[in-house]
């Protein structure tokens, strides 16, 4: 169970105009602009739900994921994940979640994938039997047999992403955060990843929160959509709610962005 209530988060960004004179002035006096990444965000997600979290770049998606995973402290508001406040008891909290950042890597670059997995086993103190079961299941579902023994640097992006997802599920977390998991993947890998996420949710009742720009991801995966723009929640409903007539999903969402003036 995830509860987010009235959460705000702002960043300070140094700004100046172009030119040497301005750069010199900025040495002595910096001007900051406050960016409201999240303003008064509230939502609730129940156990076993699969939610697509969408919005244009810079809307506040990643900030939300980071707050939910305990990496970021909100300025105000309350966050509860399975009865814990993520940023307060980070160590306890992170044992129960899995996170995939599509644009980063958690695997050790120069050693075979399996070595990174073994390390995760020790980090989370996963019991031997559970580890073996999970690894077997993940290997089968994500088709990793050939990949486990290769160094990460020699994997393609699609292969690596499959391994990243497996890595985040070895400790059987109850909640899985996926921050743009299909970014840059080819059609085949995307389908593998989607199918897998779906299965994971059905089999283990894992709560999945997924941010993406790929509307086919949303169409394939989530019943529920939360649309965020300029730090505010604009819409919280099902795909059917927002679809109009025969318009494709991309057009629908583009229409939404336009309607809310958040392009």
């Amino acid at each position, binding site marked *: 169970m995830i509860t987010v209530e009235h959460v705000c988060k702002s960043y300070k960004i140094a700004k100046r105009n172009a030119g040497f004179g301005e750069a010199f002035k900025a040495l002595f006096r910096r001007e900051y602009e406050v960016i409201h990444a999240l303003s008064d965000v509230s939502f609730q997600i129940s156990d076993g739900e699969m939610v697509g979290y969408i919005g244009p770049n810079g809307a506040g998606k990643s900030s939300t994921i980071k707050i939910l995973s305990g990496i970021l402290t909100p300025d105000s508001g309350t966050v509860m994940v399975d009865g814990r406040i993520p940023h307060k008891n980070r160590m306890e909290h992170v044992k129960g979640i899995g996170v995939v950042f599509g644009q980063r890597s958690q695997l*050790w670059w120069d050693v075979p994938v399996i070595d990174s997995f073994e390390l995760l086993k020790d980090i989370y103190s996963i019991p031997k039997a559970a580890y073996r079961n999970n690894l077997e299941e993940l290997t089968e579902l994500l088709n990793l047999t050939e990949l486990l023994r290769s160094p990460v640097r020699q994997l393609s992006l699609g292969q690596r992403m499959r391994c990243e997802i497996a890595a985040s599920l070895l400790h059987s977390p109850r909640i899985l955060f996926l921050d743009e998991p299909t970014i840059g993947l080819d059609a085949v890998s995307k389908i593998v990843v989607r199918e897998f996420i779906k299965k994971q949710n059905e089999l283990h009742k894992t709560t999945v929160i997924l941010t993406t720009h790929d509307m086919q991801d949303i169409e394939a995966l989530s019943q529920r959509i939360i649309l965020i723009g300029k730090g505010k929640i604009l819409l919280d409903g099902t795909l059917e709610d927002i679809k109009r007539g025969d318009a494709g999903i991309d057009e629908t969402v583009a229409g939404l962005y336009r309607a809310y003036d958040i392009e």
Partner: protein
Amino acid sequence: MHKYLSFFRLSFMQGLQYRTAALAGMVTQFAWGFLEIMVFQAFFQAQAEAFPMTISATASYIWMQQAFLALFATWMMDNDIFDAIARGNISYSLCRPIRIYNMWFSQSAAARVSRAVLRCFPILIVAAILPKPYGIAKPASAWHFGLFLITLILGLLVTVAFSMFVYVSTFFTLSPQGVRIVFTSMADFFAGAIIPLPFFPPKWQRVLELLPFASMQNVPLRIYSGSMTGAETERAVVLQVIWLAVLVLLGSGLCRAAEKKATIQGG
């Protein structure tokens, strides 16, 4: 504890993969070792009585230093750690039930040990068969050798604890370059990496020996070469332990503060 040992193991394994780097390092260390010995030899011939160490002890010091360079060279830092902070991969580490400080500590200790293991043996073997007084002399006794090993490990830990400050500073400065250059050149000079501490003027020496830098390579290398004895040794070992404790306490405190700051400003 178990998880940090795993970090150590994985870093160690990763380090063992870089064979070409090890070979290149070894060649450099041979060249550097011979060069240094020739320089000291020239000084020795010019005025032997002004020499604070015998030429044989100096040679042992230099060869041991070259063999175990990777354990103590403060300028050899783990670039993976800098990248993790600057590029944001640290986000992943923060999503794990681990202490960042302990993780980096074991990681960088392992990187140093793996480099040293790959490089030390050929250097030790060649230096052992070099003619006297230019090679490595045998240790004075088994006791000396044991003490050498213990202080070698303590020295490594002090070096890692010291470099942790440079890693953690990246949280505050974005680019580690400045802090890194100041810290490492200072450490190299005061630790006896360029010239052994006995070659400093006596007044300097009295101060330098109390600083954390003297608790790095200075102690094991001088115990091995026999230029540190008796009460001096005891004091040096105690200082090593004290500095290790102080540096780790300060460093992990600073690291916690840095994590908090990072989590407030954005990952």
